[in-house]
């Protein structure tokens, strides 16, 4: 990893100095032990601060969206970053020519306090970048240690009342900080429905009903485009089981309409809920 880190620093420096890109997106060390934080810089000198270690927990993939005014930017991309970029590209949020993707294989990231593999990384099926302009180092081909839908199947197996209690409890904890939304590469609306007070989709009051409205609508909005990076769940200060909602939608799409995984290549078909087949599953007759 230290080789990669060195390569990252020199590539980033080259790219900035040559003027090929106007900013670089990576990670730098935080104040505390094993802490990292995103580093977004246009200064070649600052590239020496770039780090790559097992604690680079942030998915940087959404940042290009905030940097469209900068022109071309370079980003260090693992599987999750690369898929987030594909998501942004498919949703026409950014342009391909404005992002230079430097691929890095990912061995999976760890919690800075416990040292354990992050849940999102244990579940990750694409640690290595799925698109890139150049690759630093070798792909890691880290296998997912968690069965993709194990969590869903476990919850589905619970009696209905327990499921209701489980999710009611979860929604009751939500503080509506919207970190899950703001970190999500699928959430790129110019104005989120929750902020549309005139339409009155939902109220600002924090209660289970409104939180449920937010939670379920979020899933309906992103579920069929979710790249399964698990960032929503990681950033949630209340530790809500957000991926168990997102993946439920993917699980059902999988079962209903055929094997489904989005954002693996640039020419992916339209997302499952914006298309149809005449002979789709019929259970409403």
């Amino acid at each position, binding site marked *: 990893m230290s080789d990669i880190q060195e390569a990252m620093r020199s590539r980033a420096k080259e790219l900035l100095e040559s003027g090929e890109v106007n900013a670089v997106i990576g990670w730098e060390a935080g104040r505390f032990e094993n802490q990292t934080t995103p580093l977004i810089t246009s200064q070649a000198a600052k590239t020496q601060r770039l780090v790559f270690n097992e604690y680079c927990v942030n998915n940087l993939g959404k940042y290009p969206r905030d940097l469209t005014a900068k022109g071309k930017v370079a980003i260090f991309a693992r599987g999750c970053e690369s898929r987030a970029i594909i998501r942004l590209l498919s949703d026409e949020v950014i342009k391909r020519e404005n992002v230079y993707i430097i691929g890095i294989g990912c061995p999976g990231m760890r919690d800075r306090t416990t040292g354990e593999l992050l849940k999102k990384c244990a579940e990750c099926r694409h640690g290595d970048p799925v698109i890139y302009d150049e690759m630093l180092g070798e792909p890691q081909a880290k296998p997912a240690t968690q069965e993709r839908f194990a969590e*869903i199947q476990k*919850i*589905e197996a619970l009696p*209905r*009342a327990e*499921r*209701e*209690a*489980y*999710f*009611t*409890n979860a929604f*009751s904890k939500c*503080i509506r900080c919207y970190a899950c939304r703001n970190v999500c590469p699928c959430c790129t609306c110019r104005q989120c*429905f929750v902020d549309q007070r005139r339409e009155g*989709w*939902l109220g600002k*009051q*924090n*209660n*289970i*009903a*409104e939180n*449920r*409205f937010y939670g*379920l*609508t979020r*899933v*309906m909005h992103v*579920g*069929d485009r979710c790249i399964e990076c698990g960032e929503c769940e990681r950033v949630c200060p209340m530790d809500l089981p957000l991926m168990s*909602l997102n993946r*439920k*939608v993917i699980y*059902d*799409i999988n079962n*209903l*309409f055929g094997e489904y995984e989005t954002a693996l290549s640039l020419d992916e078909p339209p997302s*499952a*809920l*914006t*298309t*149809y*087949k*005449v002979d*789709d*599953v*019929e*259970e*409403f*007759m």
Partner: protein
Amino acid sequence: MSMVETTPGAWEPKIVAFCCHWCTYTGADLAGLNRMNYPANVRVLRIPCSGRMNPQYALDALNKGCDGVLVCGCHPGDCHYSTGNYFARRRMLVFKRLLEYQGLEPERFQVRWISGAEAGKFRDTVTEVVEQVRALGPLHLNHELVLSGMEVE
């Protein structure tokens, strides 16, 4: 299932039916023309097409005091707008599963294709849904403003 038999003031299920203008709404009208009887617990909300049915309306209804939601449209292949109900079908398949997954009883959110000729099916569906929801009892999702950071009662 006349409501006369029920005790006045007792809880009655409240169900909103989102019906497409071209098929189900017409079918419901036909039920009226044929003087069919069905429980009065259903309120029909007219939308142009089942493709217009936004899952958020259903969430709103369930959150705010409806005990059940019924979504109805033309039979697949018969959509006035040719493809609206195909999109609706996918959306509703996924949405219904999501609702049930997070704990809603399956009977409380149902989808049916009812054509303009199927007055009988409209009556039967409404009757069935009302009775199923009645058997489940009221849906208490309508939580008053609760203090955040406090425990759930």
